[in-house]
């Protein structure tokens, strides 16, 4: 439950706390503490501990990366490569959030895939939405609202698939994943101003592509 993307989205915004793994500071966040313990054991050669981390984060990483690359296969490759890379570089972890560290590795893997895709163009993006997903039932769970929400998400996903890779990555990381500008700059290796610019331009591009369907988003 603690790993729920919705909960993470709700609690995150603003810089994540950075703790030095080697310091004696007690980490308050139980998830973070669990991650650090698993990571420390993995650094000691415990493969099961590392695989526990994999199990904790594979769905979240896949959900992040699948928005950035054209298809599930590439997303799967990216996530697998990200975990390979993480395992290779366990000793390179310098403290802080394990989740951010894994996300950074996965985003870099996705960026590499994107660059490779530009050299070897492949099929266009497929539909990203999951038809099995339904909004949580509640007071807004009337059929009209549900249909509108699904349609809005479908249109937005389609528009997201048509903007540039850099803009899409920035928007997904900021709006969907909830990272702040500085974290995105660190992940993608560009300046903070570039991150802002990509987000602004990306939203303008989305608005242009959604011009005919903006009524779905208004009100």
């Amino acid at each position, binding site marked *: 439950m603690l790993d729920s993307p919705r909960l993470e989205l709700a609690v995150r915004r603003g810089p994540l706390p950075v703790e030095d793994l080697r310091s004696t500071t007690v980490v308050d966040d139980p998830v973070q503490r669990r991650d650090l313990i698993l990571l420390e054991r993995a650094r000691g050669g415990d493969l099961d501990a590392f695989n526990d981390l994999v199990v904790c984060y594979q769905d979240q990483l896949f959900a992040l990366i699948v928005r950035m690359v054209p298809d599930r296969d590439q997303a799967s490759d990216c996530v697998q490569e990200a975990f390979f890379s993480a395992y290779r570089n366990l000793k*390179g972890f310098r403290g802080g959030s394990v989740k951010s560290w894994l996300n950074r590795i996965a985003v870099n893997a996705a960026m590499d895939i994107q660059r490779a895709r530009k050299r070897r163009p492949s099929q266009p993006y497929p539909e990203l939405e999951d038809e099995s997903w339904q909004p949580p039932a509640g007071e807004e769970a009337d059929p009209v609202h549900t249909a509108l929400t699904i349609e809005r998400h479908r249109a937005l996903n389609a528009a997201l698939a048509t903007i540039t890779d850099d803009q899409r990555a920035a928007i997904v990381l900021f709006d969907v994943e909830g990272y702040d500008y500085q974290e995105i700059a660190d992940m993608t290796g560009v300046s903070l101003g570039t991150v802002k610019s990509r987000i602004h331009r990306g939203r303008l591009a989305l608005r242009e592509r959604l011009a005919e369907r903006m009524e779905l988003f208004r009100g």
Partner: protein
Amino acid sequence: MPDVPDVRATSHDRHDTMLVAALAAGDLAGTDRDQAIAQTQSCSDCAALHADLIAIARATATLPPPIAASGLDFRLSPQQAERLRRTGWRRFVPSLSGRSALTRPLGISLATFGLIGLVIGNLGLGGMAASAPTSGAGSPPGAASLPSTVDIQAGGESSSDGRNALGPIASPAASAAAAASAGPAASTNDGQFLHASPAASSGTTTTAAGASGAPRSLGTTEYPVPAAPSGGQTGQAEGQVGTLTVTGNTGGPSLSNVVFGGAIVLGLVLLVASRRRGPAPG
């Protein structure tokens, strides 16, 4: 945007939409923010754009998780972990590859540079060795690049002072060029100089025959030298006793060879790394 009047279109085209986007994202402060607010208040298109951008950002933030990774298992097997847990120089290959597009060209350049340098350097040395004059007491050209040089000193009646210095000759590991230069030096001497080029090239001990079992000295260390066969090789004088003295290791491979060799190795490693390159680590 059905309520947007067309008459505004021309003036809106000159407006800075990035400013409106920054305002919608809440990234503006001070005069920029004031200017953007004034722009949205005076231009209905800018106002509509501002509202749309906020709506899009809000909708994007509520996008559901796209596709569950059900059925996908990214856990590492022990074999994969073992493969990833490289040792030695293999650990550095992925980091060398990085994400740079320059890895492969750099590797090719380094390897080429090293190869050409080695070839030119060694051809130059070989040429010098072949063309340099030789003498019995002189050092053969190119000796400085040899792993070690050895003085053969032969004692005996034929020696004027009992210790005929041959000068440094190549150790058994000497190059063919040095051996070739040492060969004529030995052949020009009339039996006083016991060394012949085959000794340098084949590794057989340069001997003064007749002193069977007589200890020789190598530097300060004496060691037994096998007895030379009776009627030894051409140029060997029976009854002479020689001393073998290491005059010093003159430094091993030259610096240029080390540099060029290192460039080749580094270039090859980069080439290998560029071939192994997958998505880069964070």
